[in-house]
């Protein structure tokens, strides 16, 4: 689960980059929104990785 989360994070980064390439500077709102979506995907990946860490820690305690 931790590894899945860590794999999702680069996907979010490339989403952010694609926002810069796909959306022109004339529509900054749309571009900023797309960039934030990329960051949200990264945050999701981090949450999944943290959850994976918590599960592993809970097992180690038993």
């Amino acid at each position, binding site marked *: 689960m931790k590894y899945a989360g860590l794999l999702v994070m680069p996907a979010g980064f490339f989403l952010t980059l694609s926002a810069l390439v796909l959306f022109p500077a004339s529509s900054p709102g749309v571009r900023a929104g797309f960039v934030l979506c990329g960051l949200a995907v990264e945050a999701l990946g981090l949450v999944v990785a943290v959850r994976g*860490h918590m599960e592993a*820690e809970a097992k180690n305690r038993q």
Partner: protein
Amino acid sequence: MTPALPPAFPETTFVLVLVLLLMAPLAIAGVALLNVGLGRSRSAAQALLGNLAIVAVTAIAFALVGATLAATTGAGHIFHAAGKPWNWLGTGPWFLSGLSSASPQAQLGLLFEFLAVALAALIPWGSGADRLRLAAGCAIAAVLAAIVFPLAAHWVWAGSGSETGGWLSKLGVNFSLGAGFLDPAGAGVIHVLGGLSALAVVWIAGPRRGKFPQGGFATAMPGHNAVYILFGCLLALTGWLAFNLAGAVLWMHEPLGGLPVTAVNTLLSASGAVVATLAVTRYRFGKPDASLCANGWLTGLVASSASAAVVSPLAALFIGIVAGIMTPLLVEVLELAVSIDDPSGAITVHGAGGLWGLIAAGIFARQAGQLTAQVVGIAALLGLLLPLAYLLFWLLNRVVPFRVEADGERIGMDLHELGGGAYPEFVIHRDESYR
């Protein structure tokens, strides 16, 4: 022979930045004292020796490999996408050859990077205190200095003022995003990178034995020397002032007349943070907590690394207050809710504090698109460099095991790794959590 100074960087500026950079190691000394004081007494000598060894290893690794990849001058490896140049890797000379004939500005930039990478590499060492082997700490520092840090440094600092800079520094020119990714003193390149590396190290090494007992709350393992911790904070202030001022001149070409405001902003950010942490811990625990207040002070300094040169004094104070409120709460959440054992609080202080500083710089810089540029930079650090650091450390752990044997943790890292303690005339009490 050194060429004549360019008109854009006169001798007075050169001397000032050089003097500032000679003061910057005080930040390293401050963080080292915090790392030692927040650990246990039976690991104090190993912790401080580790800090010293890490500074040495990073200097060597950065000189041999990292400086080439991080080069802030020269063309760099560039690919073109969507009609824009993406400069993603430096192409400096190998082994610092030709350094003496480089421009004074390039030499100062390199010195800044040497000190920055040493500071960044100390951050995961503090998080792995009391269970990370000395050899592992040095190996982690070498990987950081040779591979991970140079990528970030090149993206953010390379070619400031030239046509072909690092892709993050050129977000403004290429994509009309403010002035590009703003990080003059390394909130992202040093602190977020260090904090994320600390997270990766803690994930791989695991918690200290007895920290999270079966069916109970996390065991409190307080730092052993509040004097080290608090004196480290005062040392760090001097070093941070030096980093923030030198970074503003080197990477943002700030005129000398603007430097006093940057210094005041640094102080206000740290002051707001420590007062806020003091109030929060006083409210939550009935009395102020010394080590959390120290962490709050440092979080304020870390946040100022991104923002001090670009915000007003009032904004700097606000940034510090938010950093100070955030620190004790996040330390508690990471330890109690997420089961992350981070003795120095580096993930909160450097990781979260740096992220907040970068966002705050985007909010308060008042340039169109600046916040978006900051978010893109954060996305690069979080989405690319955290997985990269985790992968490299995971592989490294197969070769140089991070964690000491159980017996080493029980008797302390000093006796296990060095054969003698930091305080030989004092009895080190047995820890009941190891029953």
